């Protein structure tokens, strides 16, 4: 799992089709370890689809993808969970488990990775405190405000100390101050050596960073600055 090649994420002539329609067309790109890059483009351009391919939420229709040194078209079903533990994913629609407490939603990642209850409790507390969400620890997600849910989603993505964070619109429901906190956390992660890919159309967010920007338009990569 650690036979790292040059790039953290690499796509070679990747296509993704839904029925006849091409959601992604001939995408080739490389993101290097410890980069902080943005993926942008109008609504429906294919940002979420691209991220889905990276975490194997979907299979590419054609092309090769390498993530963290693994060739995703060759990975066995059994290895997928272990592969995903190297990723921290912030989903556009949060994907919180509605019937489970905030605590459980975050702890889940660590439980699945087999950590001890004691350690899990400590880490989850610490993470929630850093986001000013400690009071909500026992609440069910549907009772949270949109922004609060988004922060829980971010907390869950970061708690497992992944190598790569894939963030889909991580500040869409947040006011500037809360967004600032999230951006700060992502930058911390980046400073500690992590690789970050943020899909967003929030130009303020993009301006706040300094990384490369991949621009998608109707499924095609139109510029990679």
């Amino acid at each position, binding site marked *: 799992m650690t036979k790292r090649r040059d790039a953290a994420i690499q796509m070679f002539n990747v296509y993704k089709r839904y029925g006849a329609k091409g959601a992604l067309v001939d995408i080739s790109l490389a993101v290097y370890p410890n980069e902080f890059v943005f993926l942008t483009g109008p609504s429906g351009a294919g940002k979420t689809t691209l991220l889905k391919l990276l975490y194997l939420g979907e299979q590419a229709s054609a092309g090769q993808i390498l993530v963290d040194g693994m060739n995703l078209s060759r990975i066995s079903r059994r290895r997928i969970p272990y592969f995903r533990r190297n990723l921290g994913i912030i989903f556009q629609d949060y*994907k919180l488990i509605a019937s489970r407490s905030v605590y459980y939603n975050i702890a*889940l990642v660590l*439980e699945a990775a087999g950590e001890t209850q004691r350690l899990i409790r400590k880490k989850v507390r610490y993470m929630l405190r850093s986001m000013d969400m400690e009071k909500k620890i026992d609440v069910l997600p549907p009772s949270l405000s949109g922004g609060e849910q988004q922060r829980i989603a971010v907390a869950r993505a970061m708690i497992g100390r992944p190598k790569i964070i894939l963030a889909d619109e991580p500040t869409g429901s947040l006011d500037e101050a809360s967004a600032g906190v999230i951006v700060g956390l992502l930058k911390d992660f980046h400073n500690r050596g992590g690789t970050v890919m943020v899909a967003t159309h929030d130009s303020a967010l993009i301006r706040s960073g300094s990384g490369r920007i991949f621009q998608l338009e109707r499924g095609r990569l139109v510029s990679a600055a």
Partner: protein
Amino acid sequence: MALLMQRTFRDMRENRFLNLVTIATVALSILIVSAFSLFVVNANELLASWRRGVRMLVYLERGLSRNQELAVKRRLLKLPGVTGMQYVSREAALQQLKEEMPGQVALFTGLKENPLPDTFEIRLAPAATGSHAVLVALADRVAGIQGVDDVAYGQEWLGKFANVVNLLKLCGSAMGGLFMLAVVVIVANTVRLTLYARREEIEIMRLVGATDSFIHLPFYIQGMVQGALGGIAGVAILYLAYLYIVGGLGHGIPGTLFTPRFLSPVEYSGIIFGSVLVGWFGCYLSLKQLVRH
């Protein structure tokens, strides 16, 4: 392991509605199957007790010598289905008759001669009483033995209706099997619906790096716990119903010495164990299906 149990029970607590509905469905399904089993078991016992009462009376010709009687006995014992016999002399038979009908003693004392024959009373193996044809054939062979005057068998009707009884038993088993199958599918369906209601949750767990066994184990344990609780509840309800009915009967069914029994510990443990298996199996089917999608 402890963590697994903890996860399972937290999970059950947090999905109380789904769990209660499943347990209720399992309980009612088990109630159906076990009520029917109880019915069949007791109907069988009742029949068996009647069958045990089937004896064949072999009336001997008058004035057979001791040797001739022995020869008859040996030949009778060689017949298939005969498990034992008892000799009843004509004197003993008359005596017994007098005792059984004390009011008519005058009738017997007026007799010049004992009109009864010497008799062998044969006990039959259950196989021999199971069908009318077998019983008739046996009686024919007995009647053909030299020295035998006549043959009579009590509760002839049971032999006569053995085919019907067998058919009813066959229907009972077929229905039992049908019910069992139906109940397995019903429980599997219910588990499937509860998993369907939670498919998003399962998908999310997968996305954050949980292995299949991490995701599935609590469901399996839950399925088995639901099976166990449902099974116990079903059998318990049946037991209450049984107590109620038997309490109303007093001692035995009027007209017989037969008291319906409850399922034996082995039987009801088997049913509960089956229920646990069905819970597990329902989970297995549903999870397999979910994974495929």
